[in-house]
């Protein structure tokens, strides 16, 4: 199904390193023909076919490259990365040996061993793009070849941890969208930055070629179905483009006048002062407690290593327990540290968040210590999710995620915008994915009763049980009873707000559902992403005349629910979005009334 208004037409032009892209050491257009000593042109020119010539119509495949090694600089990074795990054993050996010459020999042996191991790993690991596959070969003990069909590559992440950045190398992670069952993801940890950019261009170029092929097949099948949409045109463009090495021949803009004029466009760079909004999201707020727990754990571990008696640590804990004032002070300090630590962690991870549009991809880059860049194929983006917590709504800020098909770990990787003012989120997301759907229709008043009941009743029940226990056993039970009562009271505004959040809408192309209060989330999903419907009704919902409508979507969290709709309203909503699926199943009488 091709939606006439499908947003970004596939770029007809070949990829290659994007002109103007800051790729270290490579002239913008020099990639294919430029000074690559390796001779492997990323996507081969049409003339350069191999003997086993593909039939006409099949896009030419690139020449096989000779196998390549990672940058020798990994000989530095690998042992250094192993240091933390080596440190304790080494320290243990030195301590146990009483710093005798023998113990130093053993320690040195360990260090040299790790370097030799790294060298062996480096020498025996090769990778190459062969035909339509990426082959990762490891021949350390036994020879293993991991083959990743380029067709299946959906995204390439380039990240540069601090040490890597110092040495000018990068880690490349290849996302094949494989689910949990067959882990086929590949990693190239330690290629030069230039090589990383080249590989990324090559790998993603194939993803686009596949896209074009499919679009062409689709266009051929549907045969001029959608005049406005681009598949036919795009496919044609690709047809010629496929044969031309990327970068050679006219620039994308020349060949395809409409659409994005620039190959790369920065959609938004988040000003640093907005990092202050971070703690409002509640992210990383528990950091101080995690750090404290980590410190206790380390104390125990090092205790054994450094021969500090474990009992000393325990007795220190007991001593602390014996001084409640101190304990409370520590807790207060930890609580006070929450926003600060949360802000610091948030800033470290979201430093200079930049969202770019590039050649059919959205690229999100962020991070202070480790610079992380995630490429989302635009063709796979089906919508977005806008999330606002309570504090965030009070401050007028929000976050947004892209809903992408076949993206694993989408919670961390699909992020389009961290915590920034709501208007900006809507602006940027509107440009990158699509505008938000407004005019949500409210759910029936019975839904308010249910939200209230669910927010209040469990705590009332707990309070009641605790009160019974208090009167039967000990007055100590009054404490939990009072706490539960207070929570039940808080449940009233919470339930009311949850009801206010409920809403659904369909604007003819995209549907939208919203729910939640402490974490309010609105999903906007294109109609074509819906793969099925599920309507559920518990016996309580039946008594209230409500049901929950879940749109199955092959992206993001898999399903987006409109909670507690009216019965007729819910069926009508599903029938409104996908009339041809439900038409014959809606009861005749209801069809008249619901229109």
């Amino acid at each position, binding site marked *: *199904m091709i939606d006439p208004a499908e947003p970004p037409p596939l770029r007809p032009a070949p990829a290659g390193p994007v002109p103007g892209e800051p790729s270290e050491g490579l002239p913008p257009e020099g990639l294919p023909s430029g000074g690559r000593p390796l001779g492997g042109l990323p996507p081969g020119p049409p003339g350069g076919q191999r003997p086993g010539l593909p039939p006409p119509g099949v896009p030419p495949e690139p020449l096989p490259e000779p196998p390549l090694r990672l940058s020798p600089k990994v000989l530095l990074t690998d042992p250094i990365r192993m240091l933390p795990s080596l440190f304790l054993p080494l320290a243990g050996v030195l301590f146990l040996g009483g710093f005798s010459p023998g113990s130093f020999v053993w320690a040195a042996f360990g260090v040299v061993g790790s370097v030799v191991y790294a060298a062996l790993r480096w020498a025996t690991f090769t990778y190459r793009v062969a035909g339509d596959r990426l082959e990762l070969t490891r021949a350390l003990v036994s020879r293993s070849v991991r083959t990743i069909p380029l067709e299946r590559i959906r995204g390439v992440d380039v990240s540069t941890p601090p040490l890597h950045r110092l040495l000018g190398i990068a880690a490349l992670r290849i996302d094949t969208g494989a689910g949990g069952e067959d882990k086929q993801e590949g990693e190239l940890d330690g290629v030069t930055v230039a090589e990383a950019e080249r590989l990324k261009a090559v790998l993603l170029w194939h993803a686009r070629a596949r896209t074009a092929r*499919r679009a062409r097949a*689709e266009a051929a099948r549907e045969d001029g179905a959608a005049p406005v949409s681009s598949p036919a045109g795009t496919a044609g463009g690709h047809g010629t483009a496929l044969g031309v090495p990327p970068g050679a021949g006219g620039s994308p803009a020349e060949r395809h006048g409409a659409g994005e004029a620039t190959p790369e466009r920065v959609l938004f760079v988040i000003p640093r002062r907005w990092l202050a909004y971070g703690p409002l999201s509640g992210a990383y707020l528990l950091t101080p407690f995690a750090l404290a727990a980590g410190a206790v754990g380390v104390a125990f571990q090092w205790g054994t290593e450094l021969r500090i008696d474990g009992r000393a640590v325990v007795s220190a804990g007991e001593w602390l327990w014996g001084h409640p004032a101190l304990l409370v002070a520590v807790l207060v300090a930890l609580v006070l540290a929450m926003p600060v630590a949360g802000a610091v962690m948030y800033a470290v991870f979201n430093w200079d968040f930049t969202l770019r549009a590039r050649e059919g991809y959205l690229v999100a880059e962020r991070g202070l210590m480790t610079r992380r860049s995630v490429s989302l194929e635009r063709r*796979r983006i089906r919508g977005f999710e806008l999330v606002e917590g309570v504090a965030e709504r009070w401050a007028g800020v929000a976050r947004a995620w892209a809903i992408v*098909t*076949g993206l694993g770990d989408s919670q961390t990787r699909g992020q389009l915008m961290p915590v920034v003012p709501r208007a900006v989120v809507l602006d940027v997301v509107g440009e990158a994915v699509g505008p938000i759907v407004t005019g949500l229709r409210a759910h029936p*008043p*019975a839904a*308010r*009763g*249910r939200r*209230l*009941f669910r927010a209040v009743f469990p705590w009332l029940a707990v309070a009641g049980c605790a009160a019974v226990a208090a009167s039967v*056993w000990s007055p100590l039970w009054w404490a939990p009873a009072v706490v539960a009562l207070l929570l039940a009271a808080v449940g009233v505004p919470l339930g009311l707000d949850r009801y206010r959040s409920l809403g659904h809408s369909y604007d003819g192309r995209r549907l939208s559902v919203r729910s939640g209060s402490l974490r309010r989330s609105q999903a906007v999903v294109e109609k074509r*992403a*819906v*793969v*099925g*419907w*599920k*309507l*559920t*009704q*518990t*016996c309580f919902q*039946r*008594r*209230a*005349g409500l*049901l929950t409508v*879940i*749109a*199955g*979507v*092959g*992206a993001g969290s*898999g*399903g987006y*629910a409109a909670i507690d709709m009216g*019965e*007729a309203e*819910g*069926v009508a909503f*599903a029938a409104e979005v*996908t009339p*041809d*699926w*439900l*038409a*014959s*199943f*809606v*009861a*005749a*009488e*209801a*069809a008249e*009334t*619901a229109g």
Partner: protein
Amino acid sequence: MSDQPGGHGDGTGGAAAVARVGERAPGRGRVPLRDPANPISRKAIVLWLLEQLLWAAVLSGGSFLLARWIDGDRWSWLPGWVPDHIWWLPVAVAAILFPAAIVEPFWRYAVHRWEFGDDVVYARSGWVSREWAFVPVSRIQTVDKAQGWFERALGLATVEIRTASHAGSSTIRGLDYEVAAVLAESLARRAEELRDDAT
């Protein structure tokens, strides 16, 4: 607040009922969807009876053992009246589970129905809670036909229809084996014809 939490007039009541299933028919609700055309196999009642009775027996037996343990050991941290009345536990468990195990299969048989028409699979399932699923054939990724031990003994089968989303997938249980085979086959064939990207 003007609303009543349980607010529901009895609305359309039996008017919208679709007569086919009869008095306790789920179609009587005000959900304006007609019943799917096909009932499942009657043998599914036997299947569910067997399964549910087995579960009820296992859980009742477990609670019986727990009661005997507590009665024998009389742990000091339990308030005194717990061991005194512990023998009510297996009695209560059995009194709840066995009637439920007998009611559920018949109730389920009235609710569970399915239909494959207009290139959409429409299935209804559940008993106390209900679920209606609509899966268009063009979005189907896999069709599985499965048989457990009891199902094999009774000549029944389950058809699992999967799409790219768990929320868009559906499972039809308690079909006669031949019916399941024909359904799975025709779904697979039609899905092949209609295949688009399916995501």
